């Protein structure tokens, strides 16, 4: 069963062009010029129930706009949309009983009253029965360790405490689909880990479908089996995180430090039967890039133990997801010359 289905979805904003200077401002007063900006441009994807999907992209790539259309806040300019069996913006009030939404940058809770009062009010708004509410609240409070925070007013909570409360507020009605817009923004590493663990558990226990946007790729690595990457309103990658890594990872980089001078030519001739590329700043330092299909040990075996080469230090570094993603953002495309496959291009 599909939890979220999106077909050719677009959202175009009209943005007023401002002309410069006083004269321009006066002109703007009488005749306005608009630019059409496609925040989301013809995207399609579907997410099966029970999946955790990461939604990433640079600032302004259209992540939040997509989430806002999926949650029924914005009305799409074009395209079809089905979330949990509803068209979000058309049957908004019925639809939202089924979903939970957390905006990392904005609060769901009432600022002045105790956390527990906020929860009680949300219970009424969502029409959750007293019994279900008690059960669910106990479960969540225990799991997120909120016990002594409940009576405090929200304005006196730290960001980490508040975010945990926000999660509870969004999940009290036990939604089957949860949208998280930058849920870990500004949090310390301990709270981040806690929230990741919690989301993973929830997904396992209740089969909750989760779509989250984030700039912290560790969120994605810890949680998501799948990632959708967005650039300028278009999907540039949709698939597994592993595939992204193997396809765009540049392999492994091995840095060698020598005790005595070792010319680059010598190293190249030793590994001439392998497709590796060497670089060196000076004779005491060399770097080799080992492609993913080769073993690092094979390369090292050729060099280590040669009587004329005295290695003092070896450092092996894998390309991190951060680097891969940074590269894709910079080129604005996830297509790599030689490989095609499931990838669409920008």
């Amino acid at each position, binding site marked *: 069963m599909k939890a979220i289905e999106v077909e050719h979805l677009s959202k175009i*904003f009209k943005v*007023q062009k401002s002309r410069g200077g006083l004269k321009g401002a006066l002109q703007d007063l009488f005749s306005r010029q608009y630019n059409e900006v496609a925040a989301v441009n013809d995207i399609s994807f579907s997410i099966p129930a029970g999946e955790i999907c990461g939604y990433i992209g640079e*600032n302004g790539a259209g992540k*939040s*706009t997509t989430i*806002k259309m999926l*949650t*029924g*806040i*914005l*009305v799409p300019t074009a395209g079809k949309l089905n979330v949990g069996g509803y068209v979000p*913006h058309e049957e*908004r*009030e*019925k639809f*939202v*009983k089924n*979903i939970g*939404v957390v*905006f990392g*940058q*904005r609060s*769901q809770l*009432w600022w*002045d*009253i105790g956390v527990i*009062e906020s929860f*009680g*009010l949300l219970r*009424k*708004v*969502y*029409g959750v029965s007293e019994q279900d509410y008690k059960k669910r609240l106990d479960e969540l409070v225990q799991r997120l360790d909120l016990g002594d925070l409940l009576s405090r007013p929200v304005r006196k909570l730290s960001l980490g405490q508040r975010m945990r409360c926000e999660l509870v507020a969004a999940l009290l009605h036990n939604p089957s689909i949860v949208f998280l*817009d*930058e849920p870990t923004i500004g949090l310390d590493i301990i709270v981040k880990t806690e929230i990741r663990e919690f989301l993973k558990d929830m997904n396992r226990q209740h089969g909750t479908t989760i779509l989250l946007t984030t700039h912290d790729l560790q969120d994605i690595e810890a949680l998501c089996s799948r990632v959708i990457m967005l650039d300028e309103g278009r999907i540039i990658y949709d698939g597994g995180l592993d595939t992204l890594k193997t396809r765009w990872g540049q392999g492994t980089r091995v840095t060698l430090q020598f005790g005595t001078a070792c010319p680059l030519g010598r190293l190249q001739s030793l590994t001439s039967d392998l497709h590796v590329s060497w670089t060196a700043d000076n004779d005491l330092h060399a770097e080799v890039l080992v492609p993913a299909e080769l073993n690092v040990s094979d390369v090292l075996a050729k060099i280590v133990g040669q009587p004329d080469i005295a290695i003092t230090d070896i450092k092996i570094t894998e390309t991190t997801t951060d680097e891969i993603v940074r590269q894709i953002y910079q080129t604005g495309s996830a297509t790599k010359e030689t490989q095609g496959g499931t990838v669409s291009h920008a």
Partner: protein
Amino acid sequence: MYYIGLVFEYLKNYMKTRLTYRADFWVEVVSDLLMQASNLIFIFVVFGHTNSLGGWSEAEVVFVYGFFMVPFGLFSCFVNLWNFSDRYIVKGEMDRILTRPAYNLFQIFLENIDPPGLIGSLIGIIIMIISGGQLGLELVWWHLPVMILFAISATLIYTGIYIALTSLSFYSDSPTGIIPLMYNIQNYGRYPVTIYNRAIQFLLTWILPFAFVGIYPASLFLGREEMTHMAWLTPVMAAIFLTIGLTSWNVGVKKYRGAGS
């Protein structure tokens, strides 16, 4: 039922917050009352110089003012759209409202509920009783239900006009200065419309029907025959203007663009 339940829940929460800021509560009550008192004093000053205003006596105008205070109190308690553009559009709080399973406008009303406004309604009733007594008005059995109907209708006319005007914030990027202007125009509806020129009469009757919040419905109880037919139009105008308001609101929500990220 669900919505009535919500009203009580939000009122409960209002009380809880307000009890932590008690001074604030009383300051608001007192400033509300002072504003009403100054309006009333204005009437007394005017009648210090003349005995009748377009054929209406002082007690009659005060009675109209008393009637006006009832729907105005209800309106300021339940329909508080003053800071809508700032809070919900510019700061993007509308996002939160739209992800909750209750009608969005209703949620906004509830979040801004302001019970001190009701004190004005109470005082309005007292003013009507006193000036009605001075005029020797007779209370007929049907006066009470009709007065309730008219007061509610007048509140809805207000609500409709303000919803329609507030929904403009969905289209415009910046807050508009139109609401303070309205607050000035609405005051004209408390005086006998016959004292104004034709254009203003037309404006107050059909375009921004503030006359239906004060003078027209109140005239029925004063036995002012020349306006009786207008008085009975109050519920009709309420239906029309509420529909206009809600329609433009619902269209506006579709245009909502969100704020920031």
